[in-house]
């Protein structure tokens, strides 16, 4: 089938501001949007810049705004968003500085990630038998959902609170904090909760649910944020 890809372009070496360009591409209905972008890049205009690697939705490189919604270009099939002759719009995710075409500066995003202590803290001596710490299947299950995060930024850059204020840590960082706060092996939950109770922490969330809809890994982001809020409100982690 034939579709048009309408892509927001920006070349920092020649452009003052972004502009739209439209490319006609011949695709299979089962092609990914990433395949269509590659078709443009490889056969029509090599200057198109985007990040991508795994091409099957696990590395988190290619979050972009496709027809106005955040998705991974490699995880959405053309047939699910367009019919023959349709135009698909593609633009960079919002709220982070655009560097070139579909590439944004991810550093502010990763700075928020690093701010929530995204690592296990446990100062107890290791098991004397030299083996693993024990954790019950139920305790392991408690934080399963938030271990799926691939740091693609689709959630954070779909959040109106983040658009309004880039200092807000954003859903992805809260998801990462959740993954450790609810891990029975971890001992730094209180420190993380303190970080998240600050001015640009979890209370900036207005439960818009955009993040949950945007998450390509199906994480219940808003629910996780709610659980962190609940822990802050009640002082109980469960």
């Amino acid at each position, binding site marked *: 089938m034939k579709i048009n890809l309408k892509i927001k372009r920006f070349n920092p070496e020649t452009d003052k501001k972004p502009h739209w360009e439209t490319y006609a591409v011949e695709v299979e209905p089962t092609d990914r949007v990433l395949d269509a972008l590659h078709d443009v890049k490889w056969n029509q205009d090599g*200057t198109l810049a985007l990040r991508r690697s795994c091409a099957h939705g696990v590395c988190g490189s290619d979050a972009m705004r496709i027809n106005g919604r955040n998705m991974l270009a490699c995880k959405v099939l053309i047939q699910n968003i367009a019919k023959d002759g349709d135009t698909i719009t593609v633009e960079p995710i919002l709220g982070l500085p655009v560097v070139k075409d579909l590439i944004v500066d991810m550093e502010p995003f990763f700075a928020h990630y690093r701010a929530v202590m995204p690592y296990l803290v446990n100062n107890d001596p290791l098991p004397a038998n030299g083996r693993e710490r024990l954790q019950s299947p139920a305790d392991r299950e408690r934080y399963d959902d938030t271990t799926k995060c691939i740091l693609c930024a689709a959630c954070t850059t779909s959040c109106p609170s983040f658009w309004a204020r880039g200092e807000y840590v954003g859903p992805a960082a809260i998801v990462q904090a959740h993954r450790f706060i609810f891990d029975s092996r971890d001992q730094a939950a209180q420190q993380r909760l303190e970080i998240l109770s600050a001015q640009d922490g979890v209370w900036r969330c207005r439960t818009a649910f955009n993040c949950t809809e945007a998450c390509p890994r199906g994480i219940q982001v808003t629910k996780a944020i709610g659980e962190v809020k609940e822990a802050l409100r009640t002082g109980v982690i469960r």
Partner: protein
Amino acid sequence: MPQYHQFDALVVGAGGAGLMAALYASKGVNTAVISKLYPTRSHTGTAQGGISAALGNLEEDKWEWHAYDTIKGGDFLCDQDAVDIMCREAIDAVIDLEHMGLPFDRTPDGKISQRRFGGHTNNETKKPVMRACHAADRTGHMILQTLYQNCIKNNVKFFDEFQVIDVLIEDGKCNGVVAVQLATGEIHVFHSKATLIATGGFGKMWKVTSNAHSLTGDLPAAVLRRGLPLEDMEFFQFHPTGVYKLGILLSEAARGEGAVFINDKGERFMERYMPTLKDLAPRDICSRCIYTEIREGRGIGGKDYVYLDFRPEQINKYFEADGNPKRIDAHYLETRLPDIIEFARVYQGIDPIKEPVPIQPTAHYAMGGIPTDNDARVLADETGRIVEGLYAAGEVACVSVHGANRLGTNSLVDLVVFGKRGGIAMAEYCKQASFRPIHRDAAAKAGAAQLDRIRNNNGNERPHAIRKEMQAVMDEKVGVYRTGAGLEEAIDKIHELQARYKRIRIDDKGFKWNTDLMEAWELGALLDLAEVTAFAALARTESRGGHYREDYPNRDDVNFLKHSMVWKNGTITLKYKPVRITRIPPQERKY
């Protein structure tokens, strides 16, 4: 102006191997990691099924059994002392990952859960053993995340989105690397005492592959150009279960949980070929059996694919036939294999709980690569001479623990065991070594010249056309089945493509985020690797593990129980070195 940096130890690549090396090197000396991707985008994150270690959490197991399985799986081309190290140290390495926070699935009594995987057996009963430690079917994702988290915790220094294009080697010693910062196009010279290469696989030589777009063999090509050899390049693994046409991997974990291969007649054909291990036979064998079925007309609808069947009622039926008391349901599969079930749903529109899934073998894993010793030190030749200051670990390296065919779950083991050993060895080395002088301006100039040649070339060839033709010929002639005549054709074709590559033209003449340029540069690396792969495959006139020659269908221990080493200095030179056999004499490979 080129920028200049100095670190005791450099790690190129931020996948499992690189991060593990960085964690351990940075405990002792000033260390930096350079990666062309953000670390969490590395392909380690796509590993699904598990990481093996003889923990014995669910049934009896021994590291010696793991070692035997690895050696037999590798068709006796593994260096057995290295395999012993890997399988013994795997146990502590997995425990180490748990201590770092890795959320492994758990047994009812809270230990790390384990499952079956191809080729891993109880050596006494010969039956599959539960050895693969897992976190659902995103074990690699959890390893990558956990290691990155610990790097942040330990303040490891990262240069993210810097692509290395040259390795500085003088008088047989390595003094650092040259990289381009992707955001600016600037050249950076990194001066070091020790450098570890951990850039992963290079499966983008093939079209149907489980490998990421970024797996283009940049560093193996760079060391080859610097006059160093690559080892066992003819051995590349084709994984039996790639998503039909796309190559996306459906982990062996599916078969570990009971899935089976089915042909057009609805027959579980692996029973015929490998009566004991059946669908859990090693990958090279399964891939060949699939192609044999297809060639004999039993592909689905006569086409070039078969089914992987993991409908719960079918799995239970086969459990019953095998005398296995276990029974499972859809919910069980959804929790054990959520990602691969989703891959089938998203990319094929098929619900594996209700329908069988079309699959075909997919280019997956490089057994060969940069030769190293057991401490990740890079070898300069077939005599074992060391390149001082240069290390390699992970998929890019060839220790060789995988021999002619890697067992599932053993790559992740390799990453953590030899990544750690490499990190420790670098730190020790750096403490007693001093910086050797380098010619930083000349190094930067040579790096810039490599890129300018492509940027300013005024030819008429589009890189993509060349890439497509290379991948087509590799799929067709340097795939699961090979022949002398086919390999010669492939070499001719690659030479033609290399000549055309000199006449490429790219669209983007800029500096900032010039991915047009970097992709074209990567294509040059792939062409060099394709060339040496085909050469080494042509010279090996036997069949062993992942290398199958239709014109020489048998293993030939008299002439070929040896590793190949290939150089490309103008022309291609091949030499060989013996396999280190310590405990287990070669025997016929039956399952």
